[in-house]
């Protein structure tokens, strides 16, 4: 199943012309700088922008094309706005019921209790929205949207209005949505760390147009896109906790290209985790070093080498199908005579656990 979108909109100062196709599962981030049309695009998908031409299909269902325009209330979607926008005249419970009771019983795939538990709202049900913190409000808004059992969740920077503390409070709930429900999510963001942590797929937007789209692991490491050239350029790796070394308090995380050790943080064996490795934290050697303090060394193949600036190069690596990035100097590259196809060892100085 896939999501097919094509939208065109012309305003005085702004032109949106967007076409993309992404799988109808997991989290797809619509990512780009502020003012590039992300929110407009999301509103168009929801049918909230009336002057948009184009089409939108999810699986077999067409929400909009040349002849059809389903009004918003007929589109089976959930929309999370940047500000929670709870109904001030209703209690938390009544807010949650608002959408729930408006869909036919046979379409209610998510029971009331499940949404309440998933977002930890039990103690808040009787409260008025005015007496909730920003993070709590946003959790209520998410549950309220989920309770319409949507085919697609649209999220417009749902964390942008929250401070760091509140973000940390809400993020785990997003991850639970991701793992426990099978609702595809289109997630608008301009925060790279959120995208790295949550997204499976990425649609890169700039100036009202799609620059590129694809799986997040590929998109972050493509040398033709700005992400790989950022100072914070990094690769994302989805791994599984393989074992815990109780003597050294290390967790062994397996991925198709090998494994990494990180300090044990109470992870359970079998848990899926997401890792982030910065390009500047990977150095390359021709032989596998043994007398080194670096624990994480994986064999890789050089996929491509591209210039970043006169002093530095960006090396794209392939660890058994998993892309990695390394940033090294021209001088080192010449010394190692790096070229596509060459087999080397990636020494990873730091692996950070995203989720």
């Amino acid at each position, binding site marked *: 199943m896939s999501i097919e979108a094509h939208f065109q909109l012309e305003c005085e100062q702004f032109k949106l012309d967007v076409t993309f196709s992404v799988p109808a599962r997991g989290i797809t981030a619509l990512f780009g700088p502020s003012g590039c049309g992300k929110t407009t695009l999301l509103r168009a998908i*929801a*049918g*909230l922008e009336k002057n948009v031409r184009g089409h939108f299909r999810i699986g077999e269902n067409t929400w909009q094309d040349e002849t059809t325009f389903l*009004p*918003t*209330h*007929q589109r089976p*979607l*959930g*929309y999370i*706005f940047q*500000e929670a*926008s709870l*109904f*001030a*005249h209703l209690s938390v419970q009544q807010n949650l019921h*608002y*959408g729930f009771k*408006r*869909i036919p019983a046979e379409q209610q795939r998510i029971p009331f209790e499940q949404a309440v538990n998933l977002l930890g709202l039990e103690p808040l049900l009787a409260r008025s929205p005015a007496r909730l913190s920003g993070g709590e409000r946003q959790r209520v808004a998410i549950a*309220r*949207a989920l309770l*319409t059992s949507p085919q697609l969740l649209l999220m417009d920077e749902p964390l942008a209005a929250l401070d760091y503390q509140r973000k940390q409070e809400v993020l785990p709930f997003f991850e639970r949505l991701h793992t426990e429900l099978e609702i595809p999510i289109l997630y608008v963001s301009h925060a790279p760390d959120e995208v790295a942590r949550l997204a499976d797929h990425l649609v890169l937007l700039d100036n009202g147009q799609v620059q590129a789209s694809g799986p997040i692991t590929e998109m972050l490491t493509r040398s033709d896109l700005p992400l790989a050239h950022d100072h914070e350029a990094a690769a994302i790796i989805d791994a599984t906790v393989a074992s815990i070394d109780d003597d050294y308090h290390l967790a062994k995380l397996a991925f198709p290209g090998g494994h990494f050790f990180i300090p044990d943080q109470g992870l359970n064996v079998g848990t899926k985790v997401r890792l982030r490795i910065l390009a500047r934290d990977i150095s390359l050697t021709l032989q596998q070093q043994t007398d080194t303090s670096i624990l994480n060394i994986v064999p890789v193949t050089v996929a491509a080498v591209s210039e970043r600036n006169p002093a530095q190069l960006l090396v794209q690596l392939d660890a058994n199908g998993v892309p990695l990035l390394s940033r090294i100097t021209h001088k080192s590259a010449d010394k190692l005579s790096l070229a596509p196809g060459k087999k080397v060892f990636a020494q990873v100085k730091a692996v950070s656990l995203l989720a």
Partner: protein
Amino acid sequence: MLSETDLIALLTTLKLAGLTTLILLVLGTPLAWWLAHSQCRFKVIIEALIALPLILPPTVLGFYLLITLGPNGPIGGLLEALGGHAIAFTFAGLVVGSVFYSLPFVVQPLQNAFSNIGRRPLEVAATLRARPVDIFFSVILPLARPGYLTAAVLGFAHTVGEFGVVLMIGGNIPGETQVLSIAIYDHVEALEYGQAHVLSGGLLLLSFILLLSIYTLNRRSRVMPL
């Protein structure tokens, strides 16, 4: 304490103010909604027209209404041509006059209420599967309640206090068009200060209580300045 004519004037006044308020709330809702949300550039003209009764001498409004609604006026003439009666100097004429006279007192609080609500709650409700009519009753109406309360009380109180318009198009027919403000005037003319006191004091108290109650209620629901 009240003579029979005073009592009839009081009932006429309450009937007039109640009916006028009801009509204004129904007509004022779509009008205020349009004013709150339209981008139309002729909007300001409509806004100015609606606000006119705030500053226009009521006798001016009454004069034009008399001409329009009388047997030779366009509307009065039309009514006569259709086999009806011109409505100047009738209760119906008074209601029409009051609707114009109190229009801004109802439309402006509603318009403010709708603008304060903004579009977001409507969009949210639509994404939660609510149809437009459903949205009006489940979201807009409850959120605009303080606005409706203000509009109703101001519309009612302002109609009770009407004098100039009534004098021009209503005349002074007991049981039909004689309202309290006219009755007070009559008493004063006849040097019946006692009865004028009762009616004036009563109106003063009523107006104060009405205003006090909207300020108290709206303060409690912390919305809508007047």
